[in-house]
């Protein structure tokens, strides 16, 4: 088959403009496909990257309802629980209302043990744990506001006020963390500092993050935790971190369905375009195919050549489009990072893209292939 490659190549070069335009349509289709997949991955917040051995325990009524901090010790006593720690959404704002910062009060001593995907040099870690007003910040949020280690910053909260009578809270930047889960926009600071200074909600926690011994027992352990607090004034709902993130992403509505819908509209159109071009170039070459058959090319070979031509053009365009998408996704990540953590185009877009390339090429070639296969030499030669 490989020996026919020059022939396929020459056929593509026959009508340069047409080939270029078809190729461009396919490139656009796959570029759009790659970008849609990137958006989907960004909106689902990297549920695939969630820790398999982590659970989230939230108030049963809603995430915004706090839990008593005494719950942490009771959760820690559940068999199979390795570690449990708290997080509180702070509603941080830097200088202007528009600059919302994802900010959390956490327990620094347990933070890195709970989240091994976050890394910080050991001396910075120690500095953060030692400084009550210490805060660690993500790379892109640091870049966005020009923060450096050692800076003293003031964040306002749109929820909590400080006992000094203001809504401003001062922090010392102790480190800039790196995270492999795409989060580089958050800031983390001491629960103790936050808890002692806030004017209401003292000794409550926002929600609990739990690490378990055996991910296979997640459902069982979650049920045990919830049973601890059943019929209390603050009942809980425990789920895996993945289910929690997925559920949170679902709040946007059925984005996946919408994206699939757009993608299929794009593909249907591109299928028509490619099939039409292929059909046209075969019609124009009927004579030539007749000559090839006269020379002894078998029906299957001629058909394979037509199919190969279609595949060549979709494969070229498809990979070019996906490559462009992955480059663009990297650039876009910086723009949208303020809203979602992003990791660029997801790897599965390449594999599903490859499947689509084969499908698109195959479907586009069906009619021309049948035509080439059935063509009788006499008819073909007479058409001149």
């Amino acid at each position, binding site marked *: 088959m490989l020996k026919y490659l020059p022939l396929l190549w020459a056929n593509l070069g026959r009508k340069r403009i047409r080939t270029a335009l078809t190729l461009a349509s396919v490139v656009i289709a796959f570029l759009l496909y790659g970008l849609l997949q990137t958006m989907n991955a960004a909106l689902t917040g990297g549920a695939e990257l969630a820790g398999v051995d982590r659970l989230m325990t939230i108030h049963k009524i809603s995430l915004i309802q706090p839990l008593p901090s005494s719950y942490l010790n009771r959760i820690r006593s559940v068999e199979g629980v390795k570690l449990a720690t708290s997080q509180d959404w702070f509603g941080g704002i830097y200088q202007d209302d528009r600059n919302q910062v994802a900010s959390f009060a956490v327990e620094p001593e347990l933070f890195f043990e709970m989240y091994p995907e976050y890394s910080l040099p050991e001396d910075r870690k120690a500095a953060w744990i030692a400084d009550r007003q210490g805060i660690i910040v993500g790379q892109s949020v640091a870049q966005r506001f020009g923060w450096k280690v050692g800076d003293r910053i003031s964040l306002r909260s749109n929820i909590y006020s400080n006992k000094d009578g203001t809504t401003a809270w001062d922090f010392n930047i102790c480190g800039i963390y790196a995270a492999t889960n795409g989060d580089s926009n958050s800031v983390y600071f001491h629960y103790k500092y936050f808890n002692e200074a806030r004017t209401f909600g003292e000794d409550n926690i926002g929600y609990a993050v739990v690490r378990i011994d055996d991910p296979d027992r997640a459902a069982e352990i979650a049920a045990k935790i919830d049973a601890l607090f059943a019929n209390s004034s603050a009942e809980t709902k425990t789920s895996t971190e993945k289910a929690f993130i997925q559920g949170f992403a679902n*709040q946007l509505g059925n984005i996946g369905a919408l994206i699939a819908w757009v993608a299929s509209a794009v593909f249907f159109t591109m299928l028509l375009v490619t099939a039409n071009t292929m059909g046209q170039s075969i019609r124009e070459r009927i004579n030539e195919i007749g000559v090839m058959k006269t020379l002894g090319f078998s029906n299957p070979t001629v058909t394979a050549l037509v199919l190969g031509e279609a595949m060549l053009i979709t494969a070229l365009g498809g990979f070019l489009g996906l490559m462009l998408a992955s480059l663009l996704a990297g650039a876009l990540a910086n723009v949208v990072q303020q809203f979602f953590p992003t990791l660029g185009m997801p790897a599965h877009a390449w594999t599903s893209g490859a499947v689509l390339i084969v499908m698109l090429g195959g479907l586009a070639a069906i009619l021309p292939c049948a035509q080439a296969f059935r063509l009788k030499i006499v008819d073909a030669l007479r058409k001149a």
Partner: protein
Amino acid sequence: MSNNALAQVATVTAMNIRNMSARAASSIVALVGIAGVVAVLVGVLSIGEGFRAVLDDSGARDVAIVLRNGATDELGSNLTLAQTRIIADNILIARDAEGIVASPELYVVVDVPMKSTGTAANVPLRGVGPQGPKLRQNFKIVAGRMFRPGMFEVVVGRGASLQFEGLTVGNTLKWGTTEWTITGIFEDAGSIAESEIWTNDTALQGAYNRGPSYQSLRVKLTSAAAVQPFKDALTADPRLNVRVFTERQYYEEKSQTLVALVSTVGAVIAVLMGLGAVFAALNTMYSAVSARSREIATLRALGFGAVPVVTSVLTEGVLLGLFGGAVGATVAYFAFNGVRASTMNFDTFSQVSFAFTVTSSLILQALLYALLLGLLGGLLPSLRAARLPIATGLREL
């Protein structure tokens, strides 16, 4: 002369349009391409229009919302009973037979499963004062009855009842240790209130251990002009530490992220798909020109000028664009207009339900875009047709 030129243009164009059917397959491809772009574009943008419609109906200019200073939304705000009383004393607030038209309100979110995904979503639960419904001009109960003050009863907005599981009259909901009965469904001309569940303020204070505190105070002012003096009076009062928004300004600010997201995504899809459609149209038109090269050369040999030839090709492109656009817009109208959906508004951390809205200006915009795509698709091929050397053209098979 000019009459003659016009006649030439008309003749060639008419001839071209008559024989478009001979190139049907390829014309249909370009048409479907453009229709696809227009349908997707209108669909995505109708989401944005839907939001805007919700917000336009929500924001009155003479209704003010008072929050704690530093809070950016109701969820993070709180006001004491004493503060709400001080504010309610302001003479700029409208009065009626039942007293001042003001409603101290609580705002929390509760988890209710979404019908489309089956997972829990943040549905707003609002506790309103006795005057609350009057602050929403078009509030009316459309099924069942209003809740009774002091009881654990709720009424559900029409949008919320359509989007979330179990929000029908007569159902009970268990949040914490309290059971709430749904006594009615209300409408408010499609405003944001229809995404919410309402109860009375005292029941919610009790269920949430809030004591005598609130999160916001909504007041109707004597006129839209009273907003500024009202704001000034409150900010100058040393007993208060609050910020004042008009309802319109509040909802505009709270929707910026969502509207920006939808319009950015819409623009990217429109540009990329538009490019794809232009390529398809170019392909079609180039083939049309090359299929007609002998005919064009014959026309030129007979003395027809370049202008009629260019015009005829361009007209074909424009017609493809217009037809494709019309088909796409029609499909989009029937597929999307009125479809209800709900999504998370991160600015308020709660769900907004809305209807996809295909407006006439959206359709007009889409048609213009389709026209442009058709024109772009026809331009280069038409120039090629005009430049075609007559002798070569006549020799082609």
